[in-house]
């Protein structure tokens, strides 16, 4: 006598759709959270190295090369942020001329950062010139070598900035930006990216 067929064979296969709702709930919670964190993409970092960390070439050194030659050793570029506008000085000069000039405020009382940027580009071209070589220094943060150009003046990438005590931080940041690079119709040229903040004399 044959056995009776198993009852299990007659059981219809049940639909086994995954219940995705809990996963959806989780994802819907995660996305707003991540979007709120993604705000940081609008933030950036302005790295400032105090003078001791910079090349120290601008401080306490004669602007002329050793031996009293014609070629200056340091540019000693200084930008003063005053109540009447910017004062730009090179080689420690304070007599008006090509090594000392002023950029007055705009008619609306704002600082003329565009004019400062343009004049510094002229200074870079005239006084610093093209790169004469390259140098490198170890970056402790990244562990890699940072390569940068060298110029005939040792401080060809540095600018000292001084301001009156009541000058807001935003003006200082804008001044640093104006000293940093020059944008000539989409083509960016490095000016003086190393800014040293000093006491107003």
């Amino acid at each position: 006598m044959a056995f009776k067929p198993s009852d299990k064979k007659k059981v219809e296969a049940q639909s086994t759709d995954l219940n995705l709702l809990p996963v959806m709930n989780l994802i819907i919670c995660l996305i707003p959270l991540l979007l709120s964190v993604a705000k940081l993409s609008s933030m950036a970092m302005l790295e400032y190295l105090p003078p001791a960390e910079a090349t120290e070439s601008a401080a306490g050194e004669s602007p002329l090369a050793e031996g009293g030659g014609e070629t200056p050793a340091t540019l000693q570029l200084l930008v003063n942020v005053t109540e009447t506008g910017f004062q730009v000085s090179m080689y420690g000069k304070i007599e008006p001329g090509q090594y000392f000039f002023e950029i007055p405020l705009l008619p609306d009382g704002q600082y003329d950062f565009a004019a400062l940027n343009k004049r510094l580009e002229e200074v870079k071209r005239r006084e610093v010139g093209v790169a004469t070589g390259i140098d490198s220094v170890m970056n402790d943060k990244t562990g890699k070598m940072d390569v940068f150009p060298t110029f005939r003046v040792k401080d060809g990438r540095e600018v000292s900035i001084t301001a009156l005590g009541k000058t807001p931080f935003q003006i200082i940041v804008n001044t640093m930006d104006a000293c940093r690079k020059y944008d000539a119709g989409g083509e960016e040229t490095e000016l003086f990216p190393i800014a040293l903040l000093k006491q107003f004399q």
Partner: protein
Amino acid sequence: MAFAPSKGKKHRRKEKEELMLNSMMDMMTIILLFLLKTMGSSGALLRPSPFVTLPTAAREREPEKTIAILVTPQGIFEDMERNPNVLSQPDELSDPENVVLSGLETFLVDQKQLTERLGKPFKGQVTVQCDKEVTYDWLLKVINTCGQAEYGTIDFVVLKAKT
């Protein structure tokens, strides 16, 4: 005379209608992966403090959170989400005789010692969220104090300028 009920209606089976979530799941997963990748490449999380209005600058480098302080017109604070600790009061900052801010210096030295006790390398790096209205004389005091406490790199957090 009333019409006979439609046969179609009479025999219509009520089928269970389910939402098709698969395509939505695909979309959500792609968005989630994109956001996670964006976050992963941004390093440590740093959020703008509600206590400061950051200045704008043409910078692109992503900020990193190290030892963080807030410099506001109301004084200097430890960077915390709520009720930040006061490190220096406005009186101390406005005093022309004060070149080094004692509260801030103590905090920075403590943080340095804590880092060393934990066996981590001390990088001498501090992240500053400085309000755009803070004046230059206060700023110089902060920089001077950081230098005094052997913090050689000061990272100011700014908002990227729209180009």
